[in-house]
């Protein structure tokens, strides 16, 4: 795929989001949590970028900043809108964002909290349509029925309430709602983590099919490497607010260049009893984003630490075609990928 042919849809530049820590009676500022600490990446139209990492790595905060569900501390979020203009989303006010909202939508993690329990499926899925001007009830009914069919549900169900549906079905309803306004970018925040194994496969298949059919662009946030591998074109691995590696799916899983990526892959238990287990699990705990270690954030847990890792912060740099790593020793290390 030619890099210059397909235009990018989203470009994130040096995104930062910090949360203040306040203590005491007069709420004195005692520190900051750098939840997102200089994150940059692009997503091309029609592709899926997987954003993977463990708890506290900042992937959910990054996703929410892009959606402008919160305001970034600094950085740019450049979005190519439907009319061709390139807009920086980060400084926009609520009113300025409103016309752009239909173009960026979200699929939530929790199927039980993402639908309003007091509204029917029709009301839930039709909300984005109603709010954006489709007042004719009959037209909305048609559109919602079409969306439900698209996501594998029977259109007759639109008068039912969410409590009548299982987790997997509710997730499909959430997907139908996200697609209602024909968005250009869909941010999926752990959409299958809360589902049973057999249902995960169904929903993942659905997302793959929809992407092909509707030419969607996805930012797929997850903590499960196997799921990310299955659905992404490119993968970004995050650790304590920073991207430590970014490459195509094939590249990153065959030849990871960052020790943390390799460790993540090793830690996933394979569903094969003959696979070797218990080989050198990563020691230590995830670093504290309020007080990260000096130098490379990962160095206390890294088996390949040297002096420079302890003192100097590594930058995200390109070491192969489209393969970015944040590691001082990336060229020297020979790491094993997924078996």
């Amino acid at each position, binding site marked *: 795929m030619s890099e210059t042919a397909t235009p990018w849809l989203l470009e994130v530049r040096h995104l930062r989001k910090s949360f203040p820590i306040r203590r005491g009676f007069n709420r004195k500022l005692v520190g900051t949590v750098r939840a997102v600490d200089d994150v940059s990446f692009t997503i091309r139209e029609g592709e899926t970028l997987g954003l993977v990492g*463990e*708890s506290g790595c900042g992937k959910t905060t990054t996703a929410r900043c892009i959606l402008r569900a919160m305001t970034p501390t600094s950085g740019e979020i450049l979005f190519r809108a439907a009319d061709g203009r390139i807009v920086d989303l980060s400084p926009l006010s609520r009113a300025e964002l409103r016309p752009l909202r239909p173009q960026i939508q979200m699929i939530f993690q929790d199927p039980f909290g993402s639908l309003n329990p007091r509204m029917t499926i029709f009301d839930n899925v039709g909300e984005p349509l109603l709010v954006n001007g489709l007042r004719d009830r009959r037209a909305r009914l048609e559109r919602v029925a079409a969306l439900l069919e698209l996501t594998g549900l029977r259109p007759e169900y639109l008068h039912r309430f969410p409590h009548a549906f*299982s*987790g*997997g*079905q509710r997730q499909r309803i959430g997907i139908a709602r996200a697609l209602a306004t024909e968005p250009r970018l869909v941010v999926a925040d752990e959409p299958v983590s809360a589902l*049973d*194994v*057999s*249902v*995960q*496969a*169904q929903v*993942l*298949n659905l997302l*793959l*099919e929809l992407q092909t059919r509707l030419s969607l662009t996805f930012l797929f946030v997850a*903590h*499960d*490497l*196997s*799921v990310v*591998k*299955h*659905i*992404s*074109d490119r993968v970004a691995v995050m650790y304590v607010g920073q991207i430590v590696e970014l490459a195509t*799916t*094939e590249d990153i*899983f065959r030849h990871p260049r960052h020790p943390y990526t390799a*460790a*993540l*892959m*090793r*830690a*996933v*238990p*394979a*569903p*094969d*009893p*003959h*696979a070797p*287990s*218990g080989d050198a*699990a*990563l*020691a230590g*705990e*995830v670093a504290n984003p309020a007080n990260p270690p000096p130098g490379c954030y990962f160095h206390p847990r890294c088996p390949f630490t040297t002096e420079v890792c302890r003192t100097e912060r590594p930058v995200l740099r390109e070491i192969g075609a489209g393969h970015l790593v944040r590691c001082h020793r990336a060229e020297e290390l020979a790491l094993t990928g*997924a*078996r």
Partner: protein
Amino acid sequence: MTPPVLEVKDLRVHFLLDEGVVRAVDGVSFDVHPGHVVGIVGESGCGKTVTMKAVLQIVEPPGRVVGGQILFRKDSAPPVDLTRLSPRGAAMRAIRGAEIALIPQEPMAAFSPVHTVGDQIIEALRLHERQWRPTGPRLSRHEAREMTVDLFRSVGISMPDQRVDAYSWQLSGGLRQRAMIAMALSCKPRLLIADEPTTAIDVTTQAQILNLLRDLQRRHGTAIVFITHDLGVIAQMARYVVVMYLGRVMEQGSVADIFHAPKHPYTRALLKSIPGLHVTPRTLLPTIAGSIPHPLGRPRGCPFHPRCPDAIPGVCTERVPALRPVGPEQLASCFLYHQEEAAEG
């Protein structure tokens, strides 16, 4: 072969709701031998958690154990049927925590937020003192604290003498789970029940915890019942696997049998539908059609038949298959292998 520590025979647990009876566990049998890890795997509604609660006799009303036996064997004494013991009686309380210990899913919810983790373990030690130390002088507070610090060290908690005085919410997820494991092992139980112990923690921490459990199990010879929905974890931890669906056992056998030679259509379909690290990316996964039925809407006959690609019309839709051997160590409840047999009830 040494007799099993735990024998579950045809266990049935029903929930009597206003809307109807939910047969949460409907005829489950398996054995746990000393030093072995038995994995119970299944999706939501399969009854694995209720089975565990029944063993510990903590099934909440409107749920009740309505049939079957749970035989627990301590040392060379004759086995005791746990279903016959009063859940709140002294006999069951002596077993719970000391002989059979639980590692729950959410360590944050299992620890009291107003007591230090050390205090809670010391409480357990003193409560069950006469079980793990039948003779000798009573445990002093100082001794109990020393033991707790040692326990923390053995589960890999750094700075144990400081962590003993920490509250559960001051510890990270991994440390909390280790403290929970320390508490479970404090009274040297014969059987450990781990209920999804790594679901709520990160994958790198999970790897550490699984290593720890394997190591402790080898050292102390504790039998473990490992409940999870993650097939990868089961493959790494268990020696014997029980696959449950809607309250019944679909298949059980050695871990090699289940993963390399699964016989039941549900097991096969489940294994195929997991996105693994080795599956080709961006291809459609083979899925199990349909979804798990509502517990009140159990299908007639075999519970899996509406979703089974190999269902035999007229047979699978009418009768419930019994669990029968399909290999030297493997059992399955499926009419593909046993035409004539049907279970009662």
